[in-house]
């Protein structure tokens, strides 16, 4: 019992996680790792590619890239010389729902890097020459992607899976839309959506939370944007009408990529935990679970074959993916469909269930081994509105999940007649 108490206390919880919301509606989270000489940070603003205007797909992503090309105070060279000369990094990218920023620095440089982060987010200069440069670079990326079987299979999956939903579009946009984006488009996007409202920053490393929170408050409380708009709510995802199949031919490739998927639960609900255990049995545990055992270990059809359960505030997918020789594509699809059928026809065995429960509990401290792992967890707490004691409470939640619960959930989410099967590689 004592050991359990100690182990529980070793996990981050309400007595060790710092969380504070400020009057300008920013939120700061921190967890100490005082033996670390460095600090890792990650955060987001709640605006992403779903806010791209019609015909301007890729605007949120291009905006994220443009933010670090210069500010009102520092041009591109000055900015990156300051960041890199102290061995730090600041990266920005846009997802569907948010613009994400992350980086790391030595703890002595944290204040400087925080100031630069605010400058980058709040005072971008959008230099025309850098916009043209990035548009050209993206044009190259699009050409390379067109020959990438994994990327083409993923885009085909999203097209079929999301159809009319904004998630059907790649976050990067398209070659023909990205080249039409102007500095005026970027400025308008920034003016509408960028501000402190909804900004979240999480930090872990060698600075105690009170000190880092004080720095955050000092630097970010000055940011006020009363006219900041909030992102519109997402339309609902429409269930698949039937099984949908798309293959993208990519010539002269030795390997084809395959994705088979269905809808996943939203957020990190209790249902999500049941799906997580089920997913581990299906395509994660050991050498990629039942899928890995069937497709790779027994049949030798693929180097990689497994399943992933995406999580998000919007609709997301439960996917099985494999990389296979083009001659083996149909066999791999058959093997995977057999495993899905088994997954929804019979409950998982007690030993499988006990395996993945033990794994889930044992992996808790390991998932928090790095500063980056801790910060990702802090952001999940905030994004999905979870209790600060979520990890400490998880063992009790897991304990109650039964094989029947997994079967019920598997049947709710996997329907053999309503799957997307997407692939890319040699012509069929």
């Amino acid at each position, binding site marked *: 019992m004592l050991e359990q108490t100690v182990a529980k206390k070793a996990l981050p919880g309400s007595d060790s996680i710092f969380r504070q919301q400020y009057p300008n509606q920013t939120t700061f989270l921190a967890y100490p790792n005082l033996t670390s000489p460095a600090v890792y940070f990650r955060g987001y603003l709640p605006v992403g590619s779903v806010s791209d205007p019609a015909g301007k797909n890729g605007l949120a992503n291009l905006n994220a890239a443009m933010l670090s090309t210069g500010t009102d105070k520092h041009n591109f060279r000055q900015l990156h010389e300051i960041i890199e000369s102290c061995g730090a*990094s600041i990266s920005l990218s846009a997802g569907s729902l948010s613009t994400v920023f992350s980086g790391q620095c*030595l703890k002595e440089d944290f204040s400087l890097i925080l100031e630069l982060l605010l400058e980058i987010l709040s005072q971008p200069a959008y230099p025309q020459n850098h916009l043209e440069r990035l548009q050209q670079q993206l044009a*190259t990326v699009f050409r390379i992607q067109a*020959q990438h079987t994994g990327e083409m299979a993923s885009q085909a999956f999203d097209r079929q899976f999301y159809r009319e939903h904004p998630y059907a579009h790649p976050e990067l946009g398209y070659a023909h839309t990205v080249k039409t984006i102007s500095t005026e488009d970027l400025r308008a996007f920034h003016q509408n959506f960028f501000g402190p409202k909804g900004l979240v920053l999480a930090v872990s490393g060698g600075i105690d939370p009170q000190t880092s929170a004080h720095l955050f408050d000092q630097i970010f409380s000055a940011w006020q944007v009363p006219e900041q708009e909030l992102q519109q709510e997402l339309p609902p995802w429409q269930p698949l009408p039937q099984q949908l199949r798309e293959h993208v031919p990519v010539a002269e490739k030795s390997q084809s990529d395959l994705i088979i998927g269905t809808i996943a639960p939203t957020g990190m609900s209790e249902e999500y935990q049941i799906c997580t255990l089920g997913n581990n049995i299906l395509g994660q545990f050991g050498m990629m679970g039942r899928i890995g055992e069937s497709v790779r270990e027994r049949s030798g059809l693929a*180097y990689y074959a497994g399943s992933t359960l995406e999580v998000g505030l919007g609709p997301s997918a439960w996917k099985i993916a494999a990389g296979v020789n083009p001659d083996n594509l149909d066999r791999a699809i058959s093997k995977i469909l057999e495993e899905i059928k088994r997954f929804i026809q019979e409950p998982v065995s007690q030993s499988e269930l006990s395996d993945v429960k*033990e794994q*889930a509990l044992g*992996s808790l401290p*390991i998932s928090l081994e790095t500063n980056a792992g801790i910060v990702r967890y802090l952001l999940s707490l905030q994004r999905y509105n979870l209790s600060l004691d979520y990890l400490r409470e998880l063992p009790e939640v897991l304990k109650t999940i039964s094989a029947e619960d997994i079967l019920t959930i598997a049947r709710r989410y996997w329907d053999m007649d309503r799957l997307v099967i997407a692939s890319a590689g040699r012509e069929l």
Partner: protein
Amino acid sequence: MVEYPILNNHKQDPKFYSLANGLRVALKQIQTAPIVSSWLWYGIGSRNEVPGKTGLSHWVEHMQFKGTKNFSGQEMENTIARTGGYTNAFTSPDWTAYFQTLPSSALETSLRFEADRMVNSLFDPEEVETERTVILSEREGNENDPQFLLGELVQQAAYQNHPYRNEVLGSKEDLINLSREDLYQHYRNYYQPNNAMVCLAGYFDENQAFDLIEKYFGSLPSFPITWSIPVEEEEITDAKTVELIGPEDANFIQIAWRSPKASDPDFFAYTLIESILSGPSSLNMFGSGGIGNRSSRLYRELIENQLAASVNGSLSASIDPGTYTLYITCRGDHSPEDVITKLNQVVDQLLTKPPSQNELDIALKQARANFAYSSDNITNQAFWMGYASSFADYSWFKDYVNRLQAVSVEDILRVSRKYFDPAHRVTGVYRSRNGASYA
């Protein structure tokens, strides 16, 4: 047990021992979380393979997950997975390593499995055949990437005979022809305590951990190893160009120069040259990413000047002289020749005058930061104990920042002139068959 004479005078330092059978042991206590990272390193990689038998080391690594006399492969995998830990293995030109990062309470499980598969792996003929298609599939996945195909050609041109010229995965031809006996002989010859090192980092009692290592590995016999040791190749013999034409709708360039072996004192100056030229390499194999390269000379000249879409460099610490390679993706509006011309100007500058002290100081600060990030997680700390020991000893890693700080701007110029001679490099170009327009 024999305690190594190095490094044991500092509380943060690992302790080093060796068993009577020659097995080396490194223990580093880190009491931040109840987890341990347990590694077993073997001094065998593609560097020790002979023509016609490429890919043996990597394939043997795969077979180590297929079961022993005592445990099936699935049993080993599932037992580790049940602890919540994770396990993996890597094969490099110089070494093969297996690791588990798992709760401290499961340390014994890790050591028991590793000791068992050091001597008891089955290499079941049916499993060998299944794995042949898996490895061919792994290679085919890599072949989808034009940079992999170009890299293979560049590496072959960078060495006349040394096995660093071969892809670790092996050639397709060899993978089709290797037999179960080839694999088993390779395993029996090189997988022995006197060619191995156990590295533990994390939360454990040092005496208990040592006793466990002695318990599982101490009785394993060591036999003389039949070595295939290559002759070092100090320089690329001349300026070579290799070309590839393919379906990608972009052009790529790779340029490789010889780099000193990691134990050569010049390696440290070379590391700073890399930082100045293409940005610093991360020391963190398992944590968050490293430092950007936007203030590096090549980024400024190639990317800011709108000649290329991306540029990155790669330098590894190796037993024998290796290669430092640049990877460049050209933009559609410039030919590879335009990019190479500009690149040559940047390299010429490196050969004609030393960098400013400020530029060197920035590279040093970046190295110090990278070193700090590398201690971010215990898996990476265990990795470095074994990795540094594969080409030198742990003091190489421990003194890394101090050795870099001793480098002067004159050293940079001297080492640049020694290694970046344009008459001794390989230039690889992948040209789009679709004919990118350079207008």
